[in-house]
């Protein structure tokens, strides 16, 4: 069966619905009190800034197989 541009768009629309509803199911970030959400976002942004300042040699591998 030939895959047309129209069928791709239709397929994407079908797939997008559950994905979108999964993201907004129940309550997304907006449902939390805005003060708390803002405080958390600000903290995560500060964390990211601090981590960005650490000089990191490119060969450094993540501690995924973490053994003390």
């Amino acid at each position: 069966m030939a895959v047309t541009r129209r069928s791709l768009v239709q397929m994407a629309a079908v797939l997008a619905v559950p994905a979108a509803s999964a993201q907004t199911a129940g309550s997304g970030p907006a449902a939390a009190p805005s003060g708390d959400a803002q405080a958390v976002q600000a903290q995560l942004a500060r964390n990211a800034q601090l981590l960005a300042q650490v000089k990191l040699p490119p060969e450094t591998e993540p501690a995924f197989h973490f053994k003390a």
Partner: protein
Amino acid sequence: MAKPPADVFFATIAELSKRLRAKEFSTVELTKAFCDRLEQTGSRYNALVLSMRKEALRKAHNTDAEIKRDRLKGPLQGIPYGVKDLLAVKGYPTAWGARPFAGQTFPDDAHVVAKLDKAGAILIGKLCMVELAGGPSYRFAGASATGPGLNPWDQTRWSGGSSSGPGSAVAAGCVTFALGSETSGSILTPSAFCGVTGLRPTYGLVSRRGAMALAWTMDKIGPMCRSVEDCALVLHEIAGGDNEDPGSAGKGFTYAPQFARKPQEITVGYAPVDFEEWSDPAAGPAFEAALEVVKSLGVKLKVVEIPDFPYQALAGTIISAEGSSAFEDLIRSGRVDELNDSRQIAGLKAGLEIPASEYLRAMRIRALVQAAFRNLYYDVDLLLTPSRPGPAPKISDPLDAPSTRPPAKSRGLSGMIPAGNLAGLPAVSLPCGFADKMPVAISLVGRPFFENEMISIGRAFQAQTDWHRRRPPADT
């Protein structure tokens, strides 16, 4: 046999074990007495989720029969204990301190519960905790389906978290010991605030099978007790490799005080600025007196400084990313909104949005942290620092209130709680005095898998002091 006298509630494991074997009282009598106390007093401190009296008494009957036939197992046989409600116990609800998980059950006991059962210890209750062990962060002590953990030393103050129930239940003499868990401070903090001795094992030393996962690369289970020796006795039983825990290091722990190095052979790293500037003024005298006691043991002291990394940001990023992934179903379902703490709800939702690049960066920096601590431990065997800068805050105080004090002139060893957890280091919190009539504590932080070293110095410290023997005012 007679009803156990009231002093059993504050006896150590070794003391109780000796008295049980001397048949001063039976295991059934001891278990009944502790169940009564846990149900009455434990509930007063929001420490008790669920009494397990019926099952405990059944086991106590069996234990008495074993002792009668001289089938002795070890020092934990017949000793009543409790577990933080993130450890599964077959047939009983395990709610992780969180309303959305009320009534949740598991088909098997957590590995550590099974191990303690085999050692003959008697589980008498499940103990309260901060919801979902506080991940990724929370703003108020009331972040729990069971209400804020109340401190037996002053009920207007917090017991600490996230192992709030284990802290207050041990302090109030409701259990002889308890199991808590730590991702970043959840054993050391309530131990310090409640005046009990708590041990955080090396990452991977104790299996987490059957325990709630918050951050897979940081979660640890450990004992909270009346003394460091009790912690060692419990750790001896619960440590060991487990193929069912992907984080297991495959190593065991043998409590071997007879082979401990002499204090004169041990170098302890510390930072004077921790005791002079980082600590609360009210707690300063207790910390400085504790430092003098450690010096008097004959250890070599060396001034050190913590390697320079943004530890809070690292731990925050990793716990947020892993915690939100672990609880993704809860977040997506919307039931996360049933949690008590709105900051925690917002944090869990936001954690799902952390980019992979940030998590990876944090984990790569973490590898540098581990290497830096390996280097630091070439020069010292242990690090010594206040467990927390001061005593427990008031229940109503926000936990994220900024410090009003001027910054210290150097970093000292401040930040050892997130740093030690990122590097997987073992630590023990030792009560060392009082500030504002509340307990404060120091911590010894060891090299990975060198628990015996910190235990030996901890024992020597507790042989010279009696802070770990003090009882809350209502129970003296």
